[in-house]
């Protein structure tokens, strides 16, 4: 048992992508530049999703863009990003460091997604994540991702154009998440990422106004985990393609819960606020401890067990 930990395999596979462990940095968290991404990778992340990148530099919303709340955090950054052309230098560096990287992109039309995807592929990303779920960006994100027909068209066109795997990040702010998940599977996407932050608001009682400059933002952190678990479970009941679970994961048991619901890997974002930049290493240790105590040797044996 002394070497027991070494015999436990927590590697993960999402379609054709293989990673050393199931923890992936979620988009929008310390992923604006290659050096920050390298630091997160050195703190144990199996893979990294970049900040969501658009065609042109975008300032995002004025501050306040961030509110700390009792059970989670609220943000409305407004998709700030340096634009795909300036981001090239970051991707090139990330790949030079040998880090498995998923390029997140957002667009308002099929053509925009194609332009971005082709550039990301050329720069060398290992896979793409389509942002179809940002809850507070006009004309992007959830505004695209709540229309299953539009989502189907965008992904189908992309699948005919790029070779690298395509993951699609979706929202829980939908009346029928299963319908969207099926449209994504039909479009031949390689995986579904669920969920993004959830539409929310905070009003200050003294000022008597919403705090966020955009008024509406996305709620993330501990409070949203049960919602994410439910979404992953429902999606997993209805589609065969891999799922990456995200929402409120702060420890190893949270990650295992998502995997039991049907996720092949997990993303961690706000968790860094609760447990620091080394949350990835911490969660991997906690996953191994749990597996050792429960006699599991391969993490993949746990995928979807809650359904059986």
């Amino acid at each position, binding site marked *: 048992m002394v070497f027991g930990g070494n015999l436990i395999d927590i590697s993960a596979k999402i379609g054709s992508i293989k990673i050393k462990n199931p923890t992936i940095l979620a988009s929008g968290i310390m992923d604006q530049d290659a050096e920050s991404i*390298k630091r997160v990778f050195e703190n144990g992340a199996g893979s990294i999703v970049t900040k969501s990148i658009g065609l042109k530099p*975008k*300032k995002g919303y004025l501050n306040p*863009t*961030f509110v*700390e709340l009792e059970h989670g955090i609220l943000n409305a950054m407004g998709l*700030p*990003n340096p634009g795909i052309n300036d981001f090239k230098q970051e991707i090139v560096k990330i790949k030079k460091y040998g880090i498995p990287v998923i390029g997140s992109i957002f667009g308002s039309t099929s053509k925009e997604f194609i332009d971005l995807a082709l550039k990301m592929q050329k720069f060398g990303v290992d896979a793409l994540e389509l942002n179809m779920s940002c809850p507070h960006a006009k004309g992007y994100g959830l505004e695209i991702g709540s229309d299953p027909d539009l989502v189907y068209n965008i992904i189908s066109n992309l699948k005919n154009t790029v070779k690298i795997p395509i993951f699609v990040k979706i929202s829980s702010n939908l009346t029928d998440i299963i319908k969207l998940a099926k449209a994504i599977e039909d479009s031949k996407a390689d995986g579904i990422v669920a969920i993004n932050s959830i539409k929310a608001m905070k009003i200050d009682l003294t000022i008597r106004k919403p*705090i966020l400059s955009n008024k509406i933002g996305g709620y993330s952190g501990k409070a949203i985990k049960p919602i994410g678990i439910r979404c992953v479970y429902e999606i997993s009941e209805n589609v065969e393609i891999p799922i990456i679970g995200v929402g409120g994961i702060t420890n190893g048991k949270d990650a295992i819960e998502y995997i039991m619901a049907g996720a092949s890997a997990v993303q961690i974002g706000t968790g860094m606020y609760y447990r620091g930049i080394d949350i990835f290493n911490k969660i991997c240790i906690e996953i191994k401890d749990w597996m050792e105590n429960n006699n599991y040797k391969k993490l993949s044996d746990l995928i979807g067990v809650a359904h059986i």
Partner: protein
Amino acid sequence: MNSLKIKEIIKIKKENQYVKTIFFKYDENIKPGQFFMIWIPNVDEIPMSVSYIKRNIAAITFRDVGDATNKLFNFKIGDKIGIRGPYGNGFKLNREKIIFIGGGTGIATLAPAIENAYKKKFNIKIIIGFKNKNELFFDKRFGKLINNLYISTNDGSIGYHGNVTDLAKEIIKDEDCLIITCGPEIMMKKLFELFNTYQFQASLERYMKCAVGICGQCCVGHGLRVCLEGPVFDATMLKNIKDFGKYKRNESGNIKYF
């Protein structure tokens, strides 16, 4: 958790034509060099370092330079601001001999550290630089504490004629001291190069959004978060921050050279 608190302005002091200090009640711990995110409702939220730390009272000192500070400049006693923090690491007064070097509004950041060092009876010198005599502030505040106060102005209208780095070159001869600086980054970089054998701490400024170390907006060097691992960096860290004195990232994350 460090949630937003609404504070009423209890006192306003006009330091000069362009610089004001706003005081509010605050009774929790603040380390010199830490900062608050200051929310000016309907306008913006910006990081500002704490310029006074008294029992039950804190203050921020700022120059009227943008939308947010302009609105704040016209605030009156009784008006409300939101604060969250204090954030960041603050200065480490780990030497008994300290030379403080400040430029422009960076001087406000140094003030609580200077008063702290004075209370500890440390051997201190203060070198502060301004464009001209009309821009002077905190000179009387520091002058009350010590005799070793040196002032430079770019136009020579008061004190040493020239910039603060030239004045520092003339004054600093003693290797066995700690240099603590805050001001324009080019100035701090110059000082860092001039005094590369000294113990050194500089307080950096970057565009910030979350201020709690997750959004990545203020990262410098090898992924160091100015809001969390900074804003104060020592010589060992500064050597590895290649952006220091060279460039910062704007709201979109594009690199902008100084």
